[in-house]
């Protein structure tokens, strides 16, 4: 497994201009009557990539997946898979398979026949089908359940049957529609890692649709954040989280504090903001916005410190307030600090020791502060 880890770490075909995308979505638009579900969307997905389409419900992610599977045809634009246009090719002739959100197991067939169904359609010899089915059952650890019907299985088992069935034909691409949506939290977390290992082991390209950002962050090599039929940002989970390209992405992924202001200067890789928050901000930024422009800085709660004493660089990147709410989550504690102007800043700190001698309490006067490279200057 060690070698796989190193492959994974260095896996970044999207950064290499010489590598060719495996799936190319080119200017695809899909309209249902007056409603535009997918709006002039372009996207490249590479071989062996674990790609996540992330967005709220109705953002068009499922429609895009259904166009890849062939259940919907684009109104305009083109999808290219492995150098071949998919236009007009029906779902039953595409080298992709899909795992459905509802699992869509055939209720009148045993687990074994569910998995064998796709292989039978290809006219595979019986002995080969039996061997492949046995292999798939082993892969998802359901050997003992081959003769069961779907209603005789638990939710987690059904999910694994659906996975085995969609993998049985060795598709070039596996599409997964909210694959873990119906599982409870604990099982979902386990299954996330199982899916990742499986994808590595089989060397397949996975495209997964999800509305759960944690799920996308955990599993995917890259995430496309979607909204209203458009892709807002495509990047690795770390880039999406630490360098969101817009306020929408910053807000959508994880918790964030947004500080607005006007640019008062930019020097040496730093941008200075004065404005509505009552304290000046100095933030590292590759961009050099013009002085006077409206801008905003996004800082994640875990990068904000809460202290009784004023920090060294106060009042830059520091402001006073009182503790309004405390949420103890076990591994960390979340503070809501209310400023004088009524705004609330979210800060979280890791509970690194079991008992703090003099913990921060409600209504205490505190300073909240953050470093000069803790946040991102947003463009819009």
């Amino acid at each position, binding site marked *: 497994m060690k070698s796989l880890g190193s492959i994974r770490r260095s896996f970044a075909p999207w950064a290499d201009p010489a590598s060719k995308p495996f799936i190319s979505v080119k200017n695809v638009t899909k309209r249902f009557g007056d409603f535009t579900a997918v709006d002039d969307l372009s996207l490249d997905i590479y071989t062996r990539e674990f790609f996540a389409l992330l967005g709220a419900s109705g953002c068009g992610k499922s429609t895009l997946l259904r166009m890849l599977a062939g259940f919907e045809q684009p109104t305009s634009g083109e999808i290219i898979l492995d150098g071949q246009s998919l236009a007009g090719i029906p779902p039953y002739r595409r080298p992709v398979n899909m795992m459905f959100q*509802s699992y869509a197991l055939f*209720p009148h067939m045993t687990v074994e026949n569910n998995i064998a169904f796709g292989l039978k359609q290809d006219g595979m010899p019986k002995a080969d089908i039996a061997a492949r089915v046995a292999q798939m059952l082993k892969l998802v650890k359901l050997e003992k359940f081959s003769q069961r019907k779907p209603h005789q299985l638990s939710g987690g088992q059904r999910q694994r049957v659906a996975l085995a069935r969609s993998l049985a034909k060795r598709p070039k691409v596996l599409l997964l529609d909210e694959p873990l949506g119906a599982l409870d939290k604990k099982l979902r977390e386990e299954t996330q890692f199982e899916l990742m290992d499986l994808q590595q082991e089989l060397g397949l390209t996975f495209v997964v649709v999800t509305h759960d950002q944690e799920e996308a962050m955990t599993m995917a090599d890259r995430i496309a954040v979607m909204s209203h039929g458009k892709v807002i940002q495509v990047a690795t989970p770390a880039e999406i989280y630490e360098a969101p390209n817009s306020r929408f992405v910053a807000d959508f992924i994880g918790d964030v504090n947004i500080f607005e202001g006007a640019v008062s200067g930019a020097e040496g890789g730093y941008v200075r903001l004065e404005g509505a928050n009552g304290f000046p901000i100095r933030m590292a930024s590759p961009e050099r916005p013009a002085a006077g422009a409206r801008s905003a800085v996004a800082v994640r709660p875990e990068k904000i410190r809460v202290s009784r004493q004023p920090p060294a660089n106060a009042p830059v990147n520091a402001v006073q307030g009182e503790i309004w709410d405390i949420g103890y989550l076990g591994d960390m504690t979340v503070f809501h600090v209310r400023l004088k102007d009524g705004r609330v800043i979210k800060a979280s700190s890791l509970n690194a020791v079991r008992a703090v001698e003099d913990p921060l309490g409600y209504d205490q006067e505190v300073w909240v502060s953050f470093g000069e490279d803790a946040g991102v200057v947003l463009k819009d």
Partner: protein
Amino acid sequence: MGTWSRFNIASIVLGFGFLYLPIVLLVIFSFNESKLVTVWAGFSTKWYAQLLHNQALLDAAWVTIRVALISATCATVLGTLAALALVRYTRFRGRMLFSGMVYAPLVMPEVITGLSLLLLFVAIGLDRGFWTITLAHITFTMCFVAVVVQSRLLSFDRSIEEAALDLGATPVRTFFAITLPVIAPAVFSGWVLAFTLSLDDLVISSFTTGPGATTLPMKIYSQVRLGVTPEINAICTILIGVVAIGVVVASIVTKQREAQRERDERAAFAQS
């Protein structure tokens, strides 16, 4: 719970008496020794034996069964197709009109259906007889099948069809390998409904019949006009018996299946 007040007992006796007294009388008198229907003269099964020698009645029964088998089967195919079209293609032009037209025969007076079919058969010069009755029965039972199958299709999870397509099955194969097996119970109940409706139809059969094609209800009706014989009671008792056995068997099978399913689901949860 459990208050057997006089009022409750009276209601039950009245209700069931109203429903079943005529049938019970019919069954009892079918075992009457006497030829006079309303005078009890001792127990006997001789009318059942005599039934076997009444060639006209047996012929009528055979015609009825053949009509019912053929018409129920055709009506099931047509009704299932109509239901599929109505549920699946929700956006085609004239869908409202089409669905209205499929269901109109449900509420159409039988006399009108019968008469209009008769006019049609006369107009196109079709010789009336066995096949015209069969065609007429297909016409009026088809909509019942469509209703039964449609209600099943409305709760049908279409993603299993998409899964089949996705796994490489053509639309035709998907229909026969996935859709049909899953909706089979509804299709079968539609068939049974069509079969029983055809079995006891009198009005439409009378309109569309011709020489040599007499169904059992028509035969019974014409004989009763000459006076009820114990033979008629006997054949009606047989009919009641057949229908009752069918209903009881069907409900027992359904019950057992449900119980089995519940057990399975509980077992699946217990070990997960």
